């Protein structure tokens, strides 16, 4: 008993119409790293919200025992008081304040409401040393990268004397190096006796770092695997998550590649704010009919910038170069011109750039091509419903009605809506930027199948992804980018992790131009 820091017993939480958690049990050993995995909608976040008091005691059934005391948290402050701190996927830092101010936000070093700046800075320096962050505590948070911001969040948790640290998708927005550093840090904290609960979709991380893995599916605990008792492969975890064996993470496809449909020639783009900084440097590339082309590269290599500058110059200044479609030069100076010319771009950030979260599914789907459902600028709602219904079925968007508000759906369903929206514009060239970021294995497979289907219909598909296996698993051909240049072009046959990585590292490290 005593070696469990946390026990959640028979937790049941119902929302109107849905049982989000059904008799879930979770036991976390003291001083260990415990992973929580499951598809989107499996109930991971709900469980953590129950634990941290976001859903106050009384709104759920079951018991929470922390260090053997039964707890009834009414809000998040009460759970933090006993040492449970949750770090959400969307970081809760104030961008204009300094690192030190952020660390002690809401927990200020003070006497009689007067800030004690000396202590604020000296204490935060100590905490930053502990998490291995070398930046000055006076730096404004907006001037450091996402990886470092994550470390600041952890330092903030440490300042609250955390005993149980919960991290929700901590590495989702991080590049490989930052992810590794973060995982190393978790191991360091473990040595200092801090227990962690890690929620992650990145199963390789989960299997390499955690001591136990609890799998949730449809609001129920499937099993808890101890990694010291059995060797855990990714496939083993996936099997538990989806409830069946996934024979392959990528659907089979026979590619039928036709003639070149799209070409980018001598493409140069400058940074919108720093006018003399070249973000894209003389890029040449082509896509053929029915081909899936991957773009690999580290964060800041210029992949998103390249895609968005092609898509109606939605990014960048002083853009030069030319675009050819079916051998003829086309102009795409605005987004609507790009859409008219058959280019579609699915953004990496569906909530900011993809969806109107307060509007319903059908209106989101039709937004980029209202011409198709209107005559003389008057919308034919029947046609809209029929078309949206068709795409909902084609992409298997799981919702009761088309009138559901997009903001209430899971990440996988939201991504499918964005994809539907761009399929609805009937593009010839479909650019997908991180099409499976933050979505679960099942939905990923469905999106991969869609990509294959679209290519089979004759579309040229360009896939930007930070997950190397994804790029390798999907693409017929891969361009590798580094610091705004294309450093390599590899066919399916010759590409493997190692060769792509080599080109990715290119002329050395890269840390510029990631847009937010």
């Amino acid at each position: 008993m005593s070696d469990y820091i946390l026990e959640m017993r028979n937790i049941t939480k119902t929302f109107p119409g849905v049982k989000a958690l059904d008799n879930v049990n979770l036991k976390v050993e003291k001083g260990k790293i415990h992973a929580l995995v499951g598809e989107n909608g499996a109930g991971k976040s709900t469980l953590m919200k129950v634990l941290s008091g976001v859903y106050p005691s009384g709104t759920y059934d079951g018991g929470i025992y922390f260090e053997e005391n039964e707890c009834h948290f009414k809000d998040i402050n009460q759970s933090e008081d006993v040492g449970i701190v949750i770090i959400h996927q969307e970081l809760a830092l104030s961008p204009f304040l300094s690192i030190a101010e952020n660390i002690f936000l809401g927990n200020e070093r003070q006497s009689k409401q007067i800030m004690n700046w000396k202590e604020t800075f000296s204490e935060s320096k100590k905490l930053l040393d502990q998490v291995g962050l070398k930046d000055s505590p006076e730096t404004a948070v907006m001037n450091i990268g996402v990886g470092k911001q994550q470390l600041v969040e952890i330092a903030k948790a440490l300042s609250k004397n955390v005993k149980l640290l919960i991290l929700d998708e901590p590495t989702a927005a991080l590049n490989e190096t930052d992810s590794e550093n973060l995982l190393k840090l978790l191991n360091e904290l473990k040595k200092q006796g801090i227990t962690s609960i890690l929620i992650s979709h990145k199963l390789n991380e989960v299997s390499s770092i955690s001591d136990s893995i609890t799998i949730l599916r449809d609001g129920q605990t499937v099993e808890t695997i101890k990694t010291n008792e059995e060797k855990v492969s990714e496939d083993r975890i996936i099997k538990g998550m989806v409830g069946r064996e996934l024979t392959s993470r990528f659907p089979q496809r026979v590619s039928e590649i036709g003639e070149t449909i799209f070409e980018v020639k001598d493409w140069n783009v400058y940074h919108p704010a720093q006018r003399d900084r070249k973000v894209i440097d003389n890029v040449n590339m082509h896509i053929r009919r029915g081909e899936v082309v991957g773009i690999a590269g580290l964060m800041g290599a210029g992949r998103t910038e390249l895609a968005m500058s092609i898509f109606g110059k939605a990014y960048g200044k002083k853009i030069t170069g030319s675009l050819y479609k079916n051998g003829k030069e086309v102009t795409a100076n605005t987004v609507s011109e790009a859409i008219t010319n058959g280019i579609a771009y699915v953004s990496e950030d569906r909530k900011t750039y993809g969806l109107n979260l307060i509007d319903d599914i059908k209106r989101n789907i039709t937004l980029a091509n209202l011409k198709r459902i209107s005559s003389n600028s008057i919308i034919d709602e029947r046609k809209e419903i029929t078309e949206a219904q068709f795409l909902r079925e084609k992409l298997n968007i799981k919702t009761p009605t088309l009138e559901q508000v997009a903001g209430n759906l899971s990440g996988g369903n939201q991504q499918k809506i964005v994809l539907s929206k761009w399929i609805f514009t009937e593009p010839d060239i479909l650019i997908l930027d991180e099409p499976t970021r933050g979505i679960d294995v099942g939905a990923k497979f469905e999106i991969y199948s869609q990509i294959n289907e679209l290519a089979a219909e004759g579309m040229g598909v360009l896939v930007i992804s930070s997950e190397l296996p994804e790029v390798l698993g999907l693409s017929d051909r891969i361009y590798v980018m580094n610091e705004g240049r294309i450093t390599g072009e590899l066919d399916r046959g010759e590409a493997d992790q190692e060769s792509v990585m080599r080109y990715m590292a290119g002329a050395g490290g890269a840390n510029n131009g990631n847009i937010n």
Partner: protein
Amino acid sequence: METLINLFRNNIRQYGMIIALVLITGLFWILTEGIIFNPLNLTNLILQNGFILVLAVGMVLVIITGNIDLSVGSVVAFVGAISGVLMINNNVPVVLAIILSLLVGALIGVWQGFWIAYIGIPSFIVTLAGMLIFRGLTLYLLDGQSLAPFPDSFGILSGGFLPDLFGSDGLHILTIILSGILSLVLIYMEFKNRKSQVQYNFEVIPLWITVTKLALLIYVINWFAYQLALNKGIPMVLVIVFVLIIIYTFIMNNTVMGRHIYATGGNKKAADLSGIKTKRVVFWVFVNNGVIAALAGLMFASRLDSATPAAGNMLELDAIAAVFIGGASMAGGVGTVIGAIVGGLVMGIMNNGMSLIGIGIDWQQAIKGMVLLLAVGFDVYNKNKAGNS
């Protein structure tokens, strides 16, 4: 019963608004011992508050795009002054003067829309500046004096009534006929809508609820029309408001432009990346609001039969309050024309009712402020509750 509760819960925003309207109407019905509903006062209520409703229609579009327009009160005064200078000082024919005045409104919209949409100055700042600029220009134009009187035909805009084609005495027959036609149209639309909901497997409201709802609505409309018919019939102001409601509801619900307005307010970045020219959308919404404010300005001047420097003072706040009481969101993307009208009616009935029972202007302001706060507070409370459950 359960379906009814669910229905209510899911549409609490719309129903809440209507309940507020009913409660406030009921309250003043009791407080004024029914005077508020006597035919003469009902007509007055419309004549006094018509321009708030007109302004609310323009304002709701602005607010849906996530902007605000603080200048409309001053624009009302400025356009009133322009029309006065044209008609009274320069003998410009009434129709031409009206057209020129609306054009001035459009130009004001172009001016403000340019700074907001293309230069990127927050609308709060631009229209706050506009509020000062156009009030100042009004004072300059009128030299601090009132201009009066307008030509008689200009009075129709605010004081005219639809003629009674049947010339009966006592009861205005045309009014009764029009409300009958409106009732039939409403019944037809409701059932057409129902049919298509069934066809597309949408959730359909139980029939008895639809029927009850329609019956209540039609009763209210016909009763209202009957009261008006006992007086002088349908005022021109009501015709103007009604036409605006129809046009703008149609634009917002059924046209590409309407979609673009909602999309721009809902998520500007996503709208931009969907090929929507959001700058252009915001620009035209402000031009539109300029014209609407000009129309309200003409109605205001016509009602007072003079152009005065203090015209439309604080009217922008009534219009903005109406839109928010009507369920729009400060963040943009949410709101309806009908909601704004209901909000405007809440404001109008309060103005009228409080005057009837002799509450001074001091307490009128304070009470209207409280109602705005409570209405939006109720809305926010419900949204939070929905978000947590």
